[in-house]
C-alpha cells in the first residue's frame, strides 16, 4: 500500500509538472487582483493596512477557485478517474493525495508569494509571518472544500460559475477565521484563539472533506 501511495503521489506531481501553465495563471491572477484594490480605493497607508487581511484573503480564495474546475475534469474526460476508482486503495485516500498535490501546486505558491502582497499593503516583520501562517492552513482548507465542489460539478453544465456558487458559502468560516487571526495580529491583539479555531477546522476537514469528495466522485462517475 505504501508503494502504491508513493507512486500515486509521484504520478500526481509529474502530471502537475506538465501543467505549469495552470500554476502561472493562478499566481498571476492572485497578484493582479490584489494589486487592483489600491488602484481602486487609494493608497492611504493606514487604509491599506486595515484592508490588507480581508483583501489578501479574498484574493487567495478567488485565486484558489480558479484552477478548481480542472482538479478532476481532465481525468474524467480521459477515463483515468474510473481507473482511480478501481485502485485497491480507499478512494478517499486517493482523493486526499490528489488534493494535497493540488494544494502543493496551486495553494502553496500563493502562500509563498503572499509576503510580497503584504509588503505592498504596508505590513512588515512579524505581520508578514502571520500572513503566511494563516494562509498556510487556510489555502489547504480552501482546497479541501473546493474539491467537494469540483467533484460535485464534474458532469454539470456551467462549470466554473456554478462551482464558485457552491463553494463560496462553504468557505465563509475559513475566510472569517483566517482573516480574523490576521486582523487581530495587525491590530496588536492576540490572534491565537482565531488561529486555533482555524487549525481545528482544518483538523475536522482533513478526514471529512475527502470522504465527501470521494462520495461525490462515485456519484458522478458510476
Amino acid at each position, binding site marked *: 500500500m505504501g508503494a502504491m501511495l508513493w507512486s500515486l503521489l509521484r504520478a500526481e506531481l509529474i502530471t502537475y509538472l506538465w501543467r505549469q501553465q495552470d500554476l502561472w495563471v493562478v499566481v498571476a491572477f492572485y497578484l493582479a487582483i490584489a494589486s487592483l484594490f489600491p488602484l481602486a480605493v487609494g493608497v492611504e497607508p493606514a487604509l491599506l493596512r486595515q484592508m490588507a487581511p480581508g483583501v489578501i484573503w479574498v484574493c487567495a480564495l478567488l485565486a484558489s477557485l480558479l484552477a478548481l474546475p480542472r482538479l478532476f475534469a481532465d481525468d474524467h474526460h480521459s477515463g483515468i478517474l474510473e481507473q482511480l476508482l478501481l485502485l485497491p486503495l480507499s478512494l478517499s485516500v486517493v482523493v486526499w493525495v490528489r488534493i494535497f498535490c493540488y494544494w502543493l501546486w496551486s495553494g502553496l505558491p500563493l502562500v509563498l508569494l503572499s509576503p510580497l502582497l503584504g509588503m505592498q499593503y504596508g505590513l512588515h516583520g512579524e505581520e508578514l509571518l502571520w500572513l503566511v501562517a494563516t494562509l498556510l492552513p487556510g489555502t489547504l482548507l480552501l482546497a479541501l472544500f473546493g474539491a467537494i465542489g469540483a467533484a*460535485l460539478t464534474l458532469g454539470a453544465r456551467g462549470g466554473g460559475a456554478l462551482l464558485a456558487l457552491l463553494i463560496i458559502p462553504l468557505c465563509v468560516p475559513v475566510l472569517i477565521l483566517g482573516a480574523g487571526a490576521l486582523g487581530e495580529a495587525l491590530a496588536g491583539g492576540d490572534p491565537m484563539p482565531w488561529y486555533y479555531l482555524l487549525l481545528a477546522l482544518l483538523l475536522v476537514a482533513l478526514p471529512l472533506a475527502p470522504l465527501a469528495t470521494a462520495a461525490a466522485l462515485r456519484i458522478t462517475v458510476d
Partner: protein
Amino acid sequence: MSEQPIRWLKFSSPKHFYFLVERLAPWLTGVGLLALLLGLYVGFILAPEDYQQGNSYRIMFLHVPAAWLSMLIYLLMALYGLIHLVWRVRMADIMARALAPTGMLFCAIALWTGALWGKPTWGAYWVWDARITTQLILLFLYAGYIALHHAIDDRHKAAQAASLLALVGSVNVPIIYFSVQWWNTLHQGASIAPGSSPTMATVMFVALMLMTLACWMYAIVVPLRRAQTLILLSEGRSQWVRDGLLVKQGGDRHA
C-alpha cells in the same frame, strides 16, 4: 401478535404519495387560510402598538416564522438528502427538490422583511449582524442546491449530487453561524441583537403563533403540490397516471 407492516412506508411510492397529497392538501390549505385570516386579524387589529417600535414591529409576524422555516426547511432538505443517499428512496429526492424553492423563498422573505423592519428601528436596511449574515449565506446555499440540481442532466446523478451538497451544507451551517458570531463580536461593539426585545404581550404571541401556523401550512402544502408535479413529470408515462388522471379527463370529454 401478528406483525403489522408499517403502513406509512407505502407513501414512499410516488403513486400512493400522489393520492395522499390529493386528499390532504385541501384540508391543510383550509387550516392555513384560516390561521392566516385569524393571524392577520389578531396581528393588525387586536394587537396594540408597541410603545417603542410603534407599528413597525408587526413585520415580526411574518419575519419570525419565515426565518424559522428557512432554517428548518434546509435541515429537512438535508435529512431527505441523507435518506435519498442511504436508502435510495426516490421520493426523498423529490421532497428535497420540492422543498428547496420554498425554503429559499422564506429565506428571502426573512431578509427582506428584516431590512424593512431594520430601517425604522435601527436606522439601516442592512446591518452585519450574525443572524442576518448567516441568513444571507443560507440563501446562497439554497441557490447552490437548486443550481446544481438543474445543472446536471442525468436525473439520478443530479439527485444524488444535490443530496450530498445539502448534507455538506447542513454540516456547515452551524460552523458558519458560530464563525459569523465570533467575527461579529470582533468587528462590532455592542451589537444590536434582534432577539433582545422585552417579553411579548400575549396578544402579540397569539398573532405570532397563528401566523407561524399559516406559514407552516404554506411550507407544507406548496412543496407537496410541487412534489406532485415532479412526480407527474417523472412518471408521466406510467400506467397509474394514465388510469388515475388522464383517462378520467378523457372520459369527461366523451360524455
